């Protein structure tokens, strides 16, 4: 599955979608009313473990297809850096990847 490229890719839209994926993940832990912004940290604020980021990565792949390669994005990070990541960093990566794909 790949994202529709007719609509411009906006940061706000991507943030909204990623926040939705995170809420589904957090719901498993009984947390359903967490505020998610660009500055939210995956580990510090959401208490997500590395295994949760595996789930998120799979969700991203399902939503955006191969145009967004989370595994490649984080290949240069070590585990501690990955869990210290903010939602905004991920949003930026998705936006940049989708815009590059839209340009062909």
């Amino acid at each position, binding site marked *: 599955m790949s994202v529709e490229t007719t609509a411009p890719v906006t940061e706000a839209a991507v943030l909204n979608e990623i926040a939705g994926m995170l809420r589904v993940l957090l719901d498993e832990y009984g947390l359903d009313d967490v505020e998610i912004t660009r500055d939210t940290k995956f*580990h*510090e604020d959401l*208490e997500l*473990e*590395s*295994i949760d*980021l*595996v*789930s998120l*990565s*799979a*969700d991203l792949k399902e939503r955006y297809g191969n145009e967004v390669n989370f*595994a*490649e994005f*984080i*290949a240069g*990070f*070590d*585990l*501690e850096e*990955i*869990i210290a990541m903010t939602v905004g960093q991920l949003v930026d990566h998705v936006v940049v990847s989708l815009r590059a794909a839209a340009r062909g």
Partner: protein
Amino acid sequence: MTKILAGDLDTHVQRLPPTIPVDGEAPVVVFIHGLLTDSLASYYFTLGPAFAAAGVDVVMYDLRGHGKSDRPATGYHLERFVADLVALLDALEITRPVHLVGNSFGGSIAFGLAAAHPERVATVIAIEAEPPVQAWTVRMAEGLDLAKSQLTQDAVIDWIAVNNGKHTARLSRAAGRLLQVTSMLEDIPVSDTIADDLSAIRCPVLAIFGADSGLSRQVPYFESYLSSCRTVVLPDQGHSVLIERTDETRDAILGWVRDHALGRVG
């Protein structure tokens, strides 16, 4: 999330197919993580993507009780972990022999499967791991006892938070809980074992150790008893080989799989 029913266990699996064309069938490499604080994330964020990019069919999964797989209260003998892996291969319809990469306890599972079902295993790649011999059960009993007494104390968890970071502290607390709510501590030390002469292991073995970890003392033992064995000892390195020496580990294993694969690996 990808969950499949393997035997009676709802199992979290992440499979990465090869991302480059491969002549013939891609070699299948199954990655088995370690006990307590570990999950398939340790491979997903280290070796997994690189192997898929090199033409390998990558299978990563969470062991029973770990990550996002089921956590039954009982049934944590090594042979249960081995049976889970057989059930997983069956559920994924993988019938040809696979390469097993096992980290720490995951390596013991790999040796266990190679001994119990040699027809399912092409090679074993053991990272900082011991074969499940009698002496191993004694060391596991001691290690698990210590883990349970330590990781269930708030003061210890606080110390870990200061010295190893909050993520490790949280994983350690979860590990303490895992030992409290399951029979792992009771089951693992009474697991089925293999003979000390390692005659049950007939496939080629690549064993990777950190020089500073006590486990590297096994090198002469492996080399004299295993019929086909290559050992790699990384200098100035303790037990966390996979996380701290990812690149060297990746290169050693990819080279090994290339040497032992029927299909060409890029």
